[in-house]
């Protein structure tokens, strides 16, 4: 079981290098992360992008790309299409987003999934490594579906359950987050929770369990009326592996609170049917991009090893 980002880094180092196609590494932080991933033995990168920009940046960060496979292309959509098709054809193990609008990548994934007859809903899974928690957790969907309906939520959950199976969690616990509180009635997200709980119980979502909690208060203080900050112990809480967010705005705001909180770190990816696509935020810096690459390498390795089967 992969319990932490440190576990991922170790595994990436041991099981790498994996073939990573990098889509438009045209920014210094990003190129530096790719360089480090090669140096750490995580990846053997294939670079697709604007020749002049890639060469200039590689030079700036002193990354010798003379031996790396390079494909020169300026069109953003063509870069996304080519890279994602390489992932789906098995030429590479991981795809990684550089300086390219995320929507182009999602579009390319949806096309390839459709060609492969999978027709999967594309969703972003943002993992959190929280200090004091002995397992990984994640928020999903934090990137694609603006207001997913019930059907989309089942697909989003299947993607996350698949990922957690790969990471060695045979029956991940799911918390369907909702803004349901004492007032405001049963919100749509709460009604979805009730249905998803039934769906999980009937095995429709694969091996997983939907918990009875829909908020952090429920998770940490089930049935209690009062709590003290000083007595909160995340290690003792029944903390979920997967947190389904009700909508994109909520997901984005929650998951990127790592910018304000000191005790959490984040790594995001899209679980395509052929392998991981890492989706660093445009505001991420080289260390977190490197971490996301390690996550991609780990997942690719687990797929190769048949960990989810």
């Amino acid at each position, binding site marked *: 079981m992969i319990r932490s980002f440190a576990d991922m880094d170790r595994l990436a180092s041991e099981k790498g290098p994996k073939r990573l196609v990098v889509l438009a590494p045209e920014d210094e932080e990003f190129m530096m992360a790719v360089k480090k991933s090669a140096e750490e033995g995580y990846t053997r990168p294939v670079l697709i992008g604007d020749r002049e920009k890639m060469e200039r940046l590689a030079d700036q960060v002193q990354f010798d790309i003379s031996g790396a496979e390079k494909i020169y292309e300026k069109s953003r959509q063509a870069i996304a299409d080519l890279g994602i098709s390489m992932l789906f054809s098995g030429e590479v193990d991981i795809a990684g987003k550089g300086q390219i609008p995320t929507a182009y990548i999602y579009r390319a994934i949806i096309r390839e999934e459709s060609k492969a007859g999978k027709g999967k809903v594309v969703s972003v899974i943002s993992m959190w490594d929280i200090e004091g928690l002995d397992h990984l957790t994640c928020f999903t969907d934090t990137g694609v579906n603006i207001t997913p309906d019930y059907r989309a939520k089942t697909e989003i959950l299947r993607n996350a359950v698949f990922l957690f199976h790969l990471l060695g969690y045979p029956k991940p616990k799911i918390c369907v987050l909702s803004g349901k509180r*004492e*007032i405001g009635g049963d*919100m749509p997200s709460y009604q979805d929770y009730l249905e998803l709980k039934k769906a999980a119980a009937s095995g429709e979502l694969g091996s997983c369990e939907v918990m009875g909690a829909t908020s952090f208060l429920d998770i940490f203080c089930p049935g209690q009326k*009062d709590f003290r900050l000083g007595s909160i112990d995340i290690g003792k809480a029944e903390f979920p592996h997967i947190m389904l967010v009700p909508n994109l705005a909520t997901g*984005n705001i929650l998951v990127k609170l790592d*910018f304000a909180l000191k005790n959490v770190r984040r790594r995001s990816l899209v679980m395509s049917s052929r392998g991981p696509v890492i989706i660093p935020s445009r505001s991420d810096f080289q260390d977190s991009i490197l971490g996301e690459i390690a996550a991609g390498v780990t997942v690719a390795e687990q797929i190769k090893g048949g960990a989810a089967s």
Partner: protein
Amino acid sequence: MMTSFDQIREEAKTRGKKKMVIAPVPAEMDFNVLSAALDSGLVSPVVIGSSDAVASWVKGQGKKASEIEMVEESDAVKALALGIDRLKKGEADILMRGAMDPKRFLVAILDKEKGLLKERVASLVSIFDPPGVGRVTMATDTYVNSFPSIAEKVTITENVIRLARLLGFSSPKIAALSAIEQVNPAIPSTMDAAILSKMAERCQFGDVTLEGPLDIDCAVSRRAATRKGVHSAVTGQGDIYLMPNVEAGFLMAELSVFIGKTPMACALMGTSHPVVLNLPFVPAENRLTEIELAVLLSGRV
């Protein structure tokens, strides 16, 4: 400008003793905070209702018991109506929710005729005092309105600005949050944020800087914002975060408390008198701060 809960406490102590109605009778968990409020000389409680637990609590207050007024009313709804009436008549300053579920309590106090609603909508402001940061930040609406319209968001914004000014923020910096920092018609909260931002630019909220839409990384980190090409006085310096909907607001407040272990107190805005809601997601350590905030708001809402 008050930059910590400690400063809020010190300021509240300078405002003179306020009469605080608790109706209906306090729930078990409220007694500790009531004792603390009584001990600190902030309030004289008026307890409306009847229970043995109240009688024994009053007895346990020693000399201060004489400062507590007891009003007998065994019916919870009538007890609350009596409390609201006292506020309306100017016989009390603050209302605190006792042992009544928040829904029934809010329905009663937000009734336009019989209740205390003053503005278009009431909204909850969660105030955070993250250790080591050296300033408080606010997020709203974290409880009352599920999916506010733009008109309601305007009032929610005015409500929080009023609180910020009372806390000494003469020109608060406000981030109107959404999923992304670009205006995208497919994401309505980006449009709402852009409208609020334009209204602020035209000084419709007075002396504030309001930027939106901003995503949370741009809002909390100037370094991240710069990397995304977003340049604003608000990035990394925000005093107030306007939440796109209550799912984001409520869950963000809870996450900050439970995972971030961030001290948080809440204030209800938009009512004619300060109301302490005593909500379950507020840490016990910060319940007294809510009374102190109500003291600061008294006579100034």
